[in-house]
């Protein structure tokens, strides 16, 4: 199992990367996935003043959008709005070349709507492993996340995330109120697929009883086995047979030589 280095470092690096690069990255692109985690609130999403998602429903996620690098303004409006003149929410972001980010509309811990951007880890995953990213984007206090009864993430608060690589397989996941045995969500038999970053968002509001889990999957991050060790006895060793062939060949030549050399001796006798 592997965990990411402390994410304070990662976050700082990401911010630096997002600083002025537009001049050198005219034809490069980044990837944006939009996640809707505000219950009961369909919205229209404008990207740089263009309506991009019409009537975007809570609980849904877009396919990854490949967008040119540069500065973006996301405006969320009521679904029947004529334009984005009076958005419910707005957010500015700079998209870096080859970055893979998720823009998430969600509730703060206090229950106010907001938009957060997260950078998705798309580095190669060791063969046989799965990556799980957990993002607390719900109006709820900090939580612990358990996998098969063991604490996987400790004290995760809105709007933090945690990332871990684990052996691929099915896990009984559970979300507990931090430091307690009080189960908020039970997710038995959750598949963490090999080579995939499974990104889980806790959304909704604990007080309103709308807490739910959304999933975004990024596949194709798999590594490959280093090799195929399929023999340890040397029973079909071709080096052996080469030596044997050479030895037999020499023995054969020697025997023939011996037979030939005896002939003159016998003729004289």
């Amino acid at each position, binding site marked *: 199992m592997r965990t990411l280095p402390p994410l304070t470092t990662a976050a700082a690096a990401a911010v630096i990367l997002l600083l002025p690069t537009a001049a050198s990255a005219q034809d490069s692109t980044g990837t944006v996935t939009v996640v809707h985690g505000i219950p009961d609130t369909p919205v229209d999403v404008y990207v740089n003043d263009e309506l991009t998602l019409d009537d975007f429903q809570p609980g849904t996620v877009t396919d990854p959008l490949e967008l040119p690098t540069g500065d973006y303004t996301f*405006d969320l409006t009521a679904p029947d709005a004529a334009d984005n003149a009076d958005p419910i929410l707005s957010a500015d972001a700079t998209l870096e070349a080859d970055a893979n980010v998720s823009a998430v509309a969600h509730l703060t811990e206090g229950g106010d709507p907001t938009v957060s951007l997260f*950078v998705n880890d798309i580095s190669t995953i060791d063969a046989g492993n799965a990556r799980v990213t957990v993002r607390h984007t719900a109006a709820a206090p900090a939580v612990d996340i358990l996998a098969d009864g063991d604490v996987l993430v400790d004290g995760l608060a809105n709007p933090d995330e945690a990332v871990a690589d684990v052996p691929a397989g099915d896990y009984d996941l559970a979300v507990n109120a931090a430091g307690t045995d009080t189960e908020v969500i039970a997710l038995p038999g959750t*598949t963490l697929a090999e080579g995939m970053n499974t990104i889980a968002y806790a959304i909704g509001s604990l007080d309103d009883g709308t807490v*739910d889990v959304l999933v975004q999957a990024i596949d194709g991050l798999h590594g490959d086995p280093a090799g195929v060790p399929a*023999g340890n006895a040397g029973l079909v060793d071709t080096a052996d047979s*080469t030596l044997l062939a050479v030895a037999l060949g020499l023995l*054969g030549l020697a025997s023939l030589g011996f037979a030939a050399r005896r002939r003159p001796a016998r003729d004289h006798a």
Partner: protein
Amino acid sequence: MATRVLAAVLGIAFLLVAAVLVVDRPVDVGQVDLSSPTTSGSRVAGATPDPTAASGPTANPDPTATPGPTAEPSPPRRLATARQGPAPTPSTAPTAVRDVPVHDARLADQAPPTVHVPDRLRLPALDLDLPVVAVGVDDDGQMEVPEDVGDAGWYRHGPTPGDPGNAVIAGHVDSRVQGLGAFHRLVDLQVGDRVEVTSDDGTTTWVVAGRRLVDKAALDPSALFRRSGQPRLVLVTCGGDFDGSVRSYRSNVVVVAHPV
């Protein structure tokens, strides 16, 4: 006289055996193209759902099946500056500028992919009919190979036979404890020989296109285990020279078969 004849006969016999040993090496035959380029009809990597959900009955469990140490929660990677208020240049077009596919993301609504795990490998030309088990990755990051030298192992994280990419099935050439493995006969497969793989949804039939002795140091795992491009069946075992100091063969015998 008798000694001379005996020496001559022995000499010829030794030379013949030596010649047979030289000729009987597992020479490369046919066409082996592991990294077949993505072509029409194939899907890109990532399109195939993961097969781990339905491992075979004797699949080796992952060696470290419990999550490790606790991952530390992090401060937010927030890159946006939230602000309230009207945007500067309102648009007047209420229709979306592009069609962005959106899907339901609730965890409870996600259906796990169905995987048809191969369970039987037939090589009629060698009169072999082997059980196939699903295998993963060992502690050293190498492909697991079934303990039983009579079994074949299908790499369960890669494509199933017939899906885009290389379906990799490996078996032991030998074992110190069990002796020769069924796959030691892989070197006898010839171009054109048929191969059949059975799973719970039917049988796929393949024809051998080539066989190679590949130096392990030169093996390209991303080519051998590719998950996109033309469907291929790849049979793998060990062969070539044996390094007694590390109890390992220096090469892999790789057989590539194409779908019929």
